[in-house]
């Protein structure tokens, strides 16, 4: 488990390139560095521009002209935005819990009885590979049939389907590091399956459980496509409200919300990057 690992600020890469191989400063190297800085600018500029905009003091979206203001942040606390934020948070937590429980049960079962592992996992991972619009159509069809369009249940169900593959991957990775002898030892000492799962397996895959919940939470919080197909007037999640705000004008409250999201993402990323070795594969 990684939790005990000391934060290391100056780890060297495993594949550190010896000086002799590393190209010395020359024209080609200089050009490629300049090109990469341009690429970095391309990736980061749009994100950095949002931040000053969020402190604008005008009713519309504009850079602060002398006076910085928090008015757009206060808009987020108005009923419309606040109810969307609460709705999205509620959905994300519910989807996170259900998705984690289902993934935990499935991953445990498949770990103990791996006979149809590849086939069954592939079935569960399908919603990740199929284009989101196609999934949205299927979920819309189901919602229309069972009269759950524009309801929290219907939208939440759609979010659950989109979140499950990511949730499951986190669980499968955690179990791939665990030996089944652990299970056999627990059972031979007289513990039932339930006890074994709760007191032996769960503590050993707690990183997987946390990752599973985290992935499902994020997938639900950010879900746009399925939500656009299955929601309407009653369910307006945060992404749905942003979508509406982008289609018709540029709502400055989006800048404030985006700045908050950028900040949270940055903090989580920095913590993750520092906790893993610097050379560890970056990935979702």
């Amino acid at each position: 488990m990684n939790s005990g690992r000391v934060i290391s600020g100056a780890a060297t890469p495993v594949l550190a390139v010896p000086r002799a191989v590393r190209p010395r400063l020359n024209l080609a190297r200089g050009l490629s560095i300049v090109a990469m800085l341009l690429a970095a600018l391309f990736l980061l500029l749009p994100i950095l521009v949002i931040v000053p905009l969020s402190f604008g003091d005008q009713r519309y979206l504009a850079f602060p002209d002398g006076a910085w203001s928090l008015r757009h942040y206060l808009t987020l606390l108005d009923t419309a935005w606040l109810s969307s934020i609460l709705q999205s948070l509620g959905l994300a937590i519910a989807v996170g819990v259900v998705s984690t429980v289902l993934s935990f049960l499935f991953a445990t079962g498949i770990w103990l009885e791996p006979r149809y592992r590849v086939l069954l996992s592939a079935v569960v991972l399908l919603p990740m590979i199929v284009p989101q619009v196609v999934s949205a159509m299927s979920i819309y069809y189901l919602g229309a049939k069972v009269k759950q369009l524009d309801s929290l249940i219907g939208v939440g169900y759609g979010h659950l389907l989109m979140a499950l593959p990511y949730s499951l991957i986190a669980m499968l990775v955690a179990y791939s590091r665990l030996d089944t002898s652990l299970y056999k030892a627990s059972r031979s000492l007289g513990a039932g399956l339930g006890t074994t799962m709760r007191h032996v397996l769960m503590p050993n895959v707690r990183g997987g459980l946390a990752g599973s919940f985290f992935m499902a939470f994020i997938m639900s919080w950010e879900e746009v496509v399925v939500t656009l197909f299955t929601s309407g007037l009653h369910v307006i999640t945060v992404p749905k409200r942003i979508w509406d705000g982008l289609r018709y004008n540029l709502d400055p409250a989006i800048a404030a919300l985006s700045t908050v999201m950028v900040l949270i993402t940055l903090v989580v990323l920095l913590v993750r990057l520092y906790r893993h070795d610097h050379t560890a594969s970056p990935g979702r």
Partner: protein
Amino acid sequence: MHAVTPPKSAQGTLRIYALLILPLPLLIVLGYLLPTLGVLGWSLSLPKVGLQNYATVLDSAAIQTVIWRTLRICLLTTVISVAIAYLIAFRWRFASARGRLLIELFVLLPFWLSMLIRAFAWLVLLRNDGLVNQSLLTLGLVDEPLALVRNELGALIGMVHFMVPYAVLPLLSSMRQVDDSLLRASSSLGAGRWQTLRDVFVPLTVPGVAAASATVFVFSLGCFVTPALLGGGKAAMLAESIYIQMFQLSNWGLGAALSIVLMAMVAVCAVVFGKLVGFARFTGRSA
């Protein structure tokens, strides 16, 4: 605290495992795949039973335009974002620990950020009175604002921005696998830096390029949010046209048919690229 008593027989054990395993696949089959068959049903029965929706897909000039535009934008997105990603991954491969951390940070920050927020940012930058146009006007480089967004160019810029991180990840793992000793061997045998790069390093990263290209192309095919917002309705790709058929024209049959067509295109690409990437990996190793 025995929630479940230990089973007596092997068959009983199997039954308990099945209880653990089956809920999730059953949910997907009944609550996801079955409705997908329902969508197929819609495409064959709305407004009346028959293949007329698929005939429309083949006949309609408007839909043909959308399909060709989708393929064109996806191809351009793939080429541009893989090129940018190769550069980033290359610098990462030969960077110090601190440099690697910085590169990972600026690749992963947009990667984790909602695509809506990124579309918002590009709208802010590229609109007529946006930062880019204002800078160009102030510098006197243009006389009137350029149309940079709410058209095909805007959609392309947004898509490339979205896809670069997805292209970087497979390239990083491919470049990490290139053994330093091969590069040392090449230079000790008298090859210059350029020759080592061209004849040793680049061929070894071909599998990564293939994997990155396949990922980006297949992902781009189904893109909806970014082209819809940054294309401003003028660059509708397949995914957006499904949404338009469903919710603006209330033509459920055609929307369902387009959805089936999109799924078929992605499936074909996934299978073909799967074979090609497997092949490239093979030749990449033997090169």
